[in-house]
């Protein structure tokens, strides 16, 4: 059972790793990153590593995408402000 699940999950991870680096749009990529993090966490559960799985869920699937989103938001925000300042009002 573990073998079937493990082989399948690893194949899925291998495919999504390639998909993740081939995604050029950064916002889409953040979503994909979250999914990829969840897949990894699932794999940790399957291979009897609950501690790491918990850490991976909290970090890989939540904290990392959150940080990326915050960074993107901040950059967009700065861009909007820059545009607003340029407009003659």
């Amino acid at each position: 059972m573990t073998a079937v699940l493990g082989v399948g999950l690893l194949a899925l991870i291998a495919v999504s790793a390639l998909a993740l680096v081939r995604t050029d749009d950064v916002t889409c990529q953040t979503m994909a990153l979250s999914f990829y993090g969840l897949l990894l966490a699932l794999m940790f559960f399957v291979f009897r590593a609950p501690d790491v799985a918990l850490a991976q869920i909290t970090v890989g699937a939540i904290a990392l995408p959150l940080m990326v989103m915050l960074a993107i938001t901040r950059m967009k925000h700065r861009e909007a402000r820059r545009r607003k300042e340029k407009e003659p009002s």
Partner: protein
Amino acid sequence: MKRSHRLWLFAVGALGMGFVYCAGARNLPPWGQYRGPYGDAIAQLAVYERHTTDTVNAVTYDYRGFDTLGEEFILFSAVTGVMLLLRPEKQDSGGKRDEKGGNPASFRDRAALSETVQMFTTAIFGFAVIFGIYMATHGQLTPGGGFQGGVILAAAPMLLYIAENTEAFQRIVSHPLVEFLEGAGAAGYALIGMAALAMGAAFLTNVIPLGTTGDVFSSGTIAAISACVGVEVAAGFTLIIFEYLREILSQKKNEEP
């Protein structure tokens, strides 16, 4: 270098590197046939010697606790680095000026969420706090530990932000205490190690008497270290989130009439 040249160069390198990797991996023990003695020995010893049931935490916070000390300071210096990089610009000229993110003045978003969602999220906030604390203190018994608990605790204020209770959010995350806790948590870990030195034992030796295996207070310093790590991680992540949001928050405040 042109992009195509770079990709070709990489293709050559990747071919060689992949070959080295796979050739080496072919000589590894087959998958699922772990045979190293180190892990087995620790798995046996930890329960008897350290009265922990989660051996991963025994390794993380005791047998290889010195690694974790380094790891906590990796987090500490990264948080310091983020604060350094994203510090507000005005501060560059005169360092002594206070750089607090502004008073948590009252402001609210106009397009509010439905009240149900707000109530619900605020309720989860309480659960998240409790769950985080539980996880940070029960690492020696069940999966989890200071790090995981800390991240959950840091996620709690974010729930407030999502519930658009921005005022409470900012009041929590911009508090100078967060910064203090971050440093204090990191220092606390090292100081627990120093306590052993003061008693004449080696750095990071357990100095608290062990209790019954399976009890929360069973494993001496592991719980204390785990708590320190939890505090540091929670404060550290909160600081990182705040640094990213600082600009957006202060702007929101200014736009409010």
